[in-house]
């Protein structure tokens, strides 16, 4: 998995048409200076050697110097990663909890207004572009009604003091997190509702009712526990899309995050920076992937048995 990401990354950002060095230097540079720069980025070696050098440096998190900012890429990423993780983590938590709850409620009240709402919000989250919804939110709550800041992660200059700083941060992150949660929740609720409807139609739920169990036992112990493993699968499948969402959200709200860094790097032909941010985002996906794999094993006894040897 990691190997595949490395190869793809190399292909994407190193074997691009055109001379990467050409984008950062003045056309008036002397050929000697150009060659020196090429040597600095290792571009004078053969491709396989370049690849090996690249693998080595990537795995040691030595991403080189950004063409655009002239600072080490690692430093740039280090200052941005927490924001991206916070943005994705919080909105994911909110949307999955809210979505699961509403999806289950909708499945338990078939034909209700709530169920119709969930079905609609699912359709909306599959058809409305995220940036459109975010732009509308910005226009409504930051421009027309200036309740929230238009852009940025912190005020300039940032307020002094720990609590004021944290408050300022949350104030800036409120709209981005809210919008991502809003967009994620519809699809999530729809999935949960569909799964739950299927589970509630299963024999074992009917038999749990035959045993005279209270409703909350049936819903939580029998239905919800059965729902968890497939829910995790969906979670896993939705991760790449969520990471993609970070690029757009950070761009719309001008947040100091990895996604927007990637966009800037890509449009500015800053190969080291683009490659490193892509690698980091892919790593984030892989990490979350492993985590949900692990959780899957815990929640589903059928899997636990199959994988007894592994974990």
């Amino acid at each position: 998995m990691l190997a595949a990401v490395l190869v793809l990354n190399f292909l994407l950002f190193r074997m691009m048409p055109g001379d990467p060095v050409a984008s950062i230097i003045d056309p008036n540079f002397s050929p000697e200076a150009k060659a020196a720069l090429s040597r600095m980025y290792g571009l004078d070696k053969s491709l396989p050697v370049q690849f090996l050098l690249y693998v080595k440096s990537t795995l040691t998190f030595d991403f080189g110097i950004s063409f655009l900012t002239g600072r080490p890429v690692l430093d740039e990423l280090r200052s941005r990663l927490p924001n991206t993780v916070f943005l994705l983590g919080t909105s994911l938590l909110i949307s999955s909890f809210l979505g699961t709850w509403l999806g289950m409620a909708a499945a338990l009240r078939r034909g209700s207004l709530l169920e119709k709402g969930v079905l609609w919000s699912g359709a909306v989250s599959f058809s409305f572009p995220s940036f459109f919804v975010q732009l509308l939110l910005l226009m409504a709550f930051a421009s027309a009604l200036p309740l929230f800041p238009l852009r940025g992660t912190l005020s300039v200059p940032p307020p002094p003091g720990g609590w004021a700083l944290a408050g300022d941060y949350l104030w800036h992150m409120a709209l981005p997190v809210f919008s991502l949660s809003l967009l994620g929740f519809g699809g999530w609720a729809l999935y949960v509702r569909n799964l739950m409807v299927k589970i509630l139609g299963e024999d074992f739920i009917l038999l749990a009712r035959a045993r005279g169990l209270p409703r909350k036992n049936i819903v939580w112990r029998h239905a919800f526990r059965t729902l968890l493993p497939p829910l995790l699968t969906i979670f896993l499948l939705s991760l790449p899309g969520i990471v993609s969402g970070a690029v757009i959200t950070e761009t719309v709200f001008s947040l100091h995050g990895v996604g927007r860094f990637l966009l800037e790097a890509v449009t500015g032909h800053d190969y080291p920076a683009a490659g490193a941010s892509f690698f980091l985002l892919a790593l984030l996906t892989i990490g979350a992937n492993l985590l949900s794999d692990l959780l899957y094993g815990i929640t589903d006894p059928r899997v636990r048995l199959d994988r007894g040897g592994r974990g």
Partner: protein
Amino acid sequence: MSALLKRWSFWSLLALVFIAIFGNRFFAAPPEAEVAASFSKPLWLDRSLPPTREITLTPEEPSVTLEWAYPPPAAFSLRTDLPESAAGLSVVWRRPDGSELTLAPLKKGLEVDGRDMAFKRALGLTPFGDAAGALFPGSGRYEVSVKGEGPWKGSVKIRLEGGRWGLLGTDQRGRDIAALFVAGVRVSLLVGIFATLIATFLGTSVGLLAGYAGGWTDSLLMRLVDLLLSIPLLPVLMALAAFWGKGLWQLILILSVFSWMGTARTIRALTLTLRDVPYIEGLRGLGAPSGYILRRHLLPETLPVLLATMTLGVPGAILSEAGLSFLGLSDPRVISWGRMLHEAQSFGAFTSGAWWMLLPPGLGIAFLCLIFLDLGKFLEERADPRLLSGGKP
């Protein structure tokens, strides 16, 4: 078939296709043309603002009156389109109180702008005076006419830049948003349909191959699918779009190369269930070549499901294209809904509060996606339910 005719989505799609093909004929100017002042509001909005007007005076119609109930227009300009100058004739402006101002003589190739010094002086204003304000002191009936002795040919055009224009207003460059919107339908439909077609073709080939061949071919292909499914799509697309080219067809190709995996999975699962159906086994027993079985029997059997997954895949492609365009990674010369939103964000739709720049493209994308979702659901219901359950994870 008759059930299809009852779906709103079918008719909406038909209407949009019609707009995509014939839509630009309803506009006098191409969508790139700058037709009015930047950020003009739609005509139906904020009726206290003056609309943009163009008045043409000809020998047949040498005088035009206009009712004015607005503040002065943002700009004023006059252009003559004459085969030759006509001495003794001039364009005269009459205000509601009856006072008259001579705007310009009827000279060949004359272009006058309200901001020109000479024009201001001719009106008796200081260099810092406001010509439009002087021409429109209040509301009432104004008249502009060619006056004087002698014949003339050609026309005189007077343009009053207002704050309102067209059905949907204008963008930051003064382009007609309605025309841009119509141009965007075409791109979204083109990208959505072609990217999905190519992706479906790829996915079907891979799925049929994996399902029918089995063994290591199958496991290799499925590993590839798993891999591609777990990589964040947008960053890859961004890199490809930025480095390999931004053209529409490149974009379609890039999108389809990275969105065939779902179809491949579905088709593989279907092929697996169908492969062991007795009559297929019988065909194999009779010595029918694999290619023949695949083409003549497995493919037709999977067709209804294929159609449904294909239709359901279109919104994904449309949204991806819109996302890339929104990030500014599309060809700036190609007008698309995503591009319109990109420009709305980067060129100050917020500071000018121009929400009419956001709504048409955004709602357009959403509406188009909803259409395909509904059609896909319709096709899914029609497809063999046995096959569908086999195709879902």
